[in-house]
């Protein structure tokens, strides 16, 4: 093997750094959307590689649904403190009060849809012209269609039938006032790539990614949802105590845990490599509502 050779992870890493720097170079007020999940944690590591020893040319922005895992919030606060970067948090709770929105009802009522309002308000409040996100094309079939620079109109809407051509590594981020661009540096990474990268880079993660004992409600689809104040528990509910880990970190109300003994990154990589279920299929209960759930949310301004 020639010494001038990059393996696939190094290629993906370089592509992602290039995209991050394009965002920094092309936009006046970018932001990095940080959720506390492994994909946005990976983005932060890539941003360090792109901009250190300088500061990030953007703040981290967290849209807090109020239904987060405590561990993810602690991780976030700790990380920001250590890195000395700026964090902006905006709360879905506040949007609900201001706009007098109806709280979603039902057993595993999710604020996932309401998150979009807060996101769009935050974009407007700070005048962000670009938001970097950790979405991957392998996650979902509508995402598989999205450009790396995805132009959104002033309502944040995605028009999948009118996407700009995007050739080679040339990213056209030119927009009109009021529009914004969602930028996805790890578009071409798979879930396994992210895990392998976390392993290679030795990136610390919130503890819920590793196997731990947890009390969970068993749903009709046999998914495990953590017992928390955010879900309604009825006497008829089957509650079990299981050794679980999380494959994704979303809201506590709509993210299912998976049974697992994996206590190290190596164990997790092994489990993911042989898993016969997709990340979303196994862990998200909000995507199963309709066939085009994600497409519709994106059209409405979601990530």
């Amino acid at each position: 093997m020639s010494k001038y050779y990059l393996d696939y992870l190094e290629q993906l890493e370089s592509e992602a750094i290039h995209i991050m720097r394009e965002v920094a170079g092309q936009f006046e007020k970018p932001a990095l959307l940080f959720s506390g999940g492994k994909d946005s944690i990976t983005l932060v590591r890539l941003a360090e590689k792109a901009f250190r020893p300088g500061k990030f040319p953007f703040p981290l922005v967290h849209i807090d649904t109020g239904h987060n895992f405590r561990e993810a919030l602690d991780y976030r606060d700790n990380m920001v403190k250590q890195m000395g970067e700026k964090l902006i948090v905006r709360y879905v709770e506040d949007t609900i009060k201001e706009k007098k929105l109806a709280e979603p009802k039902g057993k595993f009522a999710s604020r996932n849809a309401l998150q979009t309002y807060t996101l769009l308000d935050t974009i407007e409040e700070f005048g962000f012209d670009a938001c970097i996100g950790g979405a991957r094309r392998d996650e979902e079939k509508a995402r598989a269609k999205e450009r790396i620079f995805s132009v959104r109109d002033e309502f944040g809407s995605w028009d999948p039938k009118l996407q700009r051509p995007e050739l080679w590594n040339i990213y056209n981020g030119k927009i009109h006032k009021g529009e914004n661009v969602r930028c996805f540096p790890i578009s071409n990474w798979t879930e396994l790539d992210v895990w392998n990268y976390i392993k290679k880079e030795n990136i610390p993660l919130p503890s819920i990614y590793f196997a731990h004992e947890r009390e969970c409600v068993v749903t009709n689809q046999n998914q495990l949802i953590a017992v928390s104040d955010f879900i309604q528990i009825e006497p008829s509910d089957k509650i079990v105590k299981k050794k679980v880990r999380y494959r994704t970190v979303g809201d506590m109300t709509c993210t299912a845990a998976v049974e697992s003994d994996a206590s190290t990154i190596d164990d997790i990589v092994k489990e993911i490599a042989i898993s016969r279920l997709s990340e979303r299929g196994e862990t998200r209960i909000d995507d199963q509502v309709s066939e085009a759930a994600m497409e519709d949310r994106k059209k409405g301004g979601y990530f």
Partner: protein
Amino acid sequence: MDILRFITAGSVDDGKSTLIGRLLYDSKSILADQLAAIEKQSKNKDKGEIDLAILTDGLRAEREQGITIDVAYKYFSTPKRKFIIADAPGHIQYTRNMVTGASNSDLVVILIDARKGVIEQTKRHSIIASLLALPHVVVAINKMDLVNYDEKVYNQIVTDYKNIQEQLGIKNPRFIPISALSGENIVDPSANMKWYKGGTLITILENVELKNDINLTDARFPVQYVIRPQTDDLHDYRGYAGKLTSGILKVGDKISVLPAGHKSTIKLIEKDGKPVDEAFAPQSVIVHLADEIDISRGDVIVREGNEPTVTQDIEVLLCWMDAKAMEVGSKYLIQHNNKQIRCAVKGIEYKLDVNTLEKQTSVAAAQLNDVCKVTLKTARPIAVDSYAKLRTNGGAVLIDETSYVTVGACIIQ
């Protein structure tokens, strides 16, 4: 492990999406919940048939109409290699999306419906693949099940394609007879086409040579961003951040900064915050120079003595991708790597008739999906290579000055 990026092409309904679905299905790359979802949606599920095209046709409008509108990206790997697949639309209206997917591909699989043979869209996509200089071309004659797996039909189409391949600009294509629907010669060899002695599609994809596709000779380092922390301890730090698109840069190399032409020497190269002796394409690094010269985003650092052309007059082959025609005299923004400047269309030398493959002269405008040879004048000098020499420094896009939409793909001559 390395990555092969490939795209499917060919006319509408030739079976591109079905082929991708089949490739993923037969290589056991479809996960159980995804498979359950497409089974549920397949129209003929009662007959036990699943519509594998649904796997990539991820938009509601695509599923309703049974066509692909925009490129879908899919990922899978075998023990040999990782693959990034772009499933392109065949419909002429969405040619711009095929161009998008093809621009980053190392290989194209051009599908031909065995019943229809070589048709206009086969030629259009072949021309685009050749303009974009995709290193590897596979021509797959699909739906062999509908022509009784007849070797003669296959041979005739191969001959027809070979007769025009030179005009199309396609070099050394490989041919393969397949049925995407029934999964023959995709991952498993076909029992119905014993007369075909070549490998299955997956073996071709796993074995095409990729090493020579990266240029390590001509160093080009477009500066994306200048890192200046301006803190007390890093007061004088000034690093040029970018990705080496081709070639190798070493500490001590004498360099030029283009288009201005300033000279300096590489003092330091940083990768992951650590000094390294050299960097090579396609690494993202930070470069420091020995002299304080004026460099900003859009400039390109190259080795002295191996320099691109600095010019304001460029000749390009152009794929026009907008409904609004491009006329001689029109002004656009041109984006080359990360540099955006204004330019004007000086003239159209000829337009390529995709069907007859003839060059039409005295053309006043380029219409949607036209391929033309065009001369452009840029507002300021830019540093370009010909696409034929250096794919990574020879491509550019045109951007409409009012809508800001990307309207043209330029292959610099």
